[in-house]
């Protein structure tokens, strides 16, 4: 189309230049003016529109995420039409993109809304958003610009736990324990009559004087639990039929344990061989054991981003060998994986000799029960088998 008009313009202007006819010149001005102004207006509109995407970038599964696209026309000229296309992953919505055509008056703002649903953990990119506009007459093709993608982190699901009974050999912590060998002198719970063998330093002299019998203080046993979660995201080490659900269940287990530990003011750390969705080809950096809610959020963020893979990830045995030296004495090493083979059991047994407390959790729908349990007994490593998220409820009792 524009070729016809350009040719007409050329002819008109040539005729005008030769004949000096006023009407031809005016017509030429009109057509040239609309062409040049229309062309300039399109580019100007695109430059003068300020776009921002507003949304909560960290959410938990099941939450609905309202996304607002704020458009602001900073120019005195209106934007005749503006086509917006914002892409998002299929896990967040049934429709893979948000598409709307709108117009903006001069110096006006407009907010477009759409909603996404966080169905599963992960790191998702919203965008890139394509913005396009054009002129009134079709002189030129549509002009486009791109608004960069932004990331949305969906944390893994957390199942609230009550008592996972993780082993510990660190006495005197903030965690109540049943075995009396870890009595904590800072937690007196009562008094009893003296028995032969009780150390004299436990005698409560005031009570003894008032009761005319020797009384000793009774302390509540407590332990300090420092947990390091070793999460295996090498899908090749899961059962053949559990290569997708197994690692996901392992992530949920790790997140739930981390949440429980932080909730009980214990230190928790994370080591995983999974790949980082944010940095392609790189592993998730280990998270050193710490306490506190902020630390938990950091761990959850890492668990949201971690990706399982059959290739490019080191086996869990290598991971344990590499990082067990960095753990403090008495740390509970929780290995969350998809199988309990002899090599792994031997490695966990070895960690015990390093002064750590190994604990094995095997995840996956198709995991056999008997063999891992027997191996656990044989090697003296406590073991838990989870087929689904429902199995985690045993720790809610």
């Amino acid at each position, binding site marked *: 189309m*524009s070729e016809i008009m*350009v040719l007409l313009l*050329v002819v008109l202007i*040539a005729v005008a230049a030769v004949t000096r*006819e006023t009407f031809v010149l*005016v017509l030429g001005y009109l057509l040239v003016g609309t062409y040049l102004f229309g062309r300039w207006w399109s580019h100007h509109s695109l430059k003068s529109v300020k776009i921002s995407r507003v949304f909560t970038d960290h959410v938990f599964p099941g939450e609905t995420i309202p996304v607002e696209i704020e458009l602001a026309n900073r120019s005195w000229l*209106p934007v005749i039409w503006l086509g917006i296309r914002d892409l998002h992953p299929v896990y967040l919505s049934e429709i893979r993109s948000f598409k*709307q*055509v709108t117009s903006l008056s001069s110096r006006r703002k407009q907010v477009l809304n759409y909603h996404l649903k966080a169905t599963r953990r992960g790191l998702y990119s919203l965008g890139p958003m394509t913005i396009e506009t054009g002129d009134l*007459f079709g002189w030129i093709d549509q002009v486009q610009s791109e608004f960069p993608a932004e990331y949305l982190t969906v944390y893994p699901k957390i199942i609230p736990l009550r008592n996972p009974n993780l082993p510990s050999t660190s006495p005197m912590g903030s965690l109540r324990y049943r075995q009396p060998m870890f009595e904590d002198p800072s937690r007196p719970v009562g008094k009893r009559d003296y028995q032969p063998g009780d150390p004299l330093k436990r005698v409560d002299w005031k009570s003894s004087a008032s009761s005319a019998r020797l009384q000793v203080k009774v302390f509540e046993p407590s332990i300090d639990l420092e947990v390091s979660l070793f999460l295996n995201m090498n899908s090749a080490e899961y059962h053949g039929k559990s290569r997708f659900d197994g690692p996901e269940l392992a992530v949920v287990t790790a997140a739930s344990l981390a949440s429980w530990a932080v909730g009980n003011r214990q230190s928790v750390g994370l080591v995983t061989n999974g790949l980082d969705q944010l940095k392609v080809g790189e592993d998730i950096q280990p998270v050193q054991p710490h306490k506190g809610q902020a630390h938990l959020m950091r761990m959850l963020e890492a668990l949201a981003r971690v990706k399982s893979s059959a290739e490019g990830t080191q086996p869990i045995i290598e991971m344990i060998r590499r990082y067990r030296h960095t753990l403090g004495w008495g740390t509970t090493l929780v290995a969350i994986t998809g199988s309990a083979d002899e090599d792994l059991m031997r490695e966990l047994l070895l960690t015990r000799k390093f002064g750590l407390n190994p604990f094995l959790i095997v995840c996956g729908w198709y995991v056999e029960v008997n063999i891992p349990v027997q191996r656990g007994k044989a090697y003296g490593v406590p073991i838990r088998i989870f087929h689904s998220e429902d199995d985690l409820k045993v720790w809610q009792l």
Partner: protein
Amino acid sequence: VTASSPAPLSTIDQSRNLTRIVLRLLSIAMLVIFGIGLSIFFGQVFQLSFAGFIPWVILVASIEALVTYARGQQIEGRERQLFRLSEVVTLAFILRVVLLLAQNFTSIQAELAAMQTGFLGTFFSGKFILLFLLGLFSWWTTAYYADLYDQFHERELDVLWDALGLVHNTLKQIRNRMLGVSVSLLSVLVMCMALASATFSIPGVLDIKAILKTPTWLVTVFGVLLLVQLSLTQFALLRSRWEIDRSKVSPGVPRQWLLSGLILLGVICVVAALLPTEYSMSFFEMVVWLAGIIAQIAQLIISILYLPLFFIFSLFSKQPPQDLPPMPGLEPPKLTPPAGVPLVLPPFLYILRDLLFFGGLIFIIGFGIYQYFSSNSELLKRLRAFPFFSWIARLFHELAGLFRAANQSIQLQIKRLQASGIHLPRIKGGPGRTSPTPTDPREKIIHLYTILVDYAGQHGIQRNHSETPTQYEQKLSARVPAAQTEVTDLTNVFIQARYSPRIMDEFSAKRFSDEIGAVKKTLDDLEEKNNNQQKANE
């Protein structure tokens, strides 16, 4: 996904129907304006008294075509042809009756009497035939427009099931056909207006003086209507794209489109009306003046070049020296201001203004031609095949070949001179050799090798462009056998640096530099030895 303000489906349908109605009205308006232009043309050029009827005939024929178009589409085959024939006959009859009634009573009586004696000759008078043909033309054009609009509308509805590309291409084709008709009408209108305001004088045959100034509004309004048609069809194209793309369209978009379009056209019309249209020089006068300036400058340069020769020859002449040839002067062009417009500013300002105007025009024309040919490469190919252009292209090709041959010949002579031991002065600052000393080892090695080749070239060992580094190594080694090891090593390192991805370190670059120094020294020694030997021989 849910949008905040989705457009109800009926809005698109309403917008579509409205577009169709407005487009039909536009076509009638364009034809009426075209008719007014024709009436001015026939009234001015052929002095036809009944020219004022033309717009009315066109209006009536267009409305009739539009009203009966839907009925005509409903019927098929023979019945349709008969329906169309009856329309034509009715139109002819009504036109004849109107022409009859438009006269005074005496003329009506005379014409009725003439019809009784010779019906056909009187009925089909020249006046009637012209008006009838124009009426038929407008009737056909309106029907064609209506058909295109209907096709456009139907193809727009196909977006619900057809592929986007297919629908879009078809819509664009239909739109181009519409524009083709409109642009043709505009072109004819412009031609007619230009002819109507021109002065014709063929002695004894035709003598028409331009007494009427063509109304500018006529062509401007037609142009505006054409732009409105463009805008509406562009919106329809976009609308179909949005619909097939399942995009939500805000209800404000059509309103904004309409408002912005009207404001834009209004502003452009005002600006176009305010821009200057009267110029002191015509385009050709300006071109001739510019060509004159160039010729005068050339003459001036030739005169300056001629002066030394003139003085030298005057020294050998026994006759007294003649006066110097006159220096050419630059004269401003003659201004021909429009009638009744006195020149109030200095003439150079008018010239400057006209230069700017025509410069802008030439730029726009050039830009338009560039745009046109860049989007029509096939046309360019055909144009190249045209004998005149192919001859021009061949001429330029031959000239380029001539210059190339001359350049090669000069280069050959330079090489011969250099080979014979004459050192030509090197022009410093040549491209590619003056870059600052590179810091990267790889670049440093390549740079040093280039210096070596230059240095050896100055010592009579030139490297041909076709020679590979290995070939040049053999040549250099043969001439400088004392530095054969260094030359081989230098060539190998250069090949690695230039053609392999191997990482070059500073140590290699340093070693390379040292070896270059050694080869240079050997070259200098060789040259000194040759000079001494030459002196001894002398």
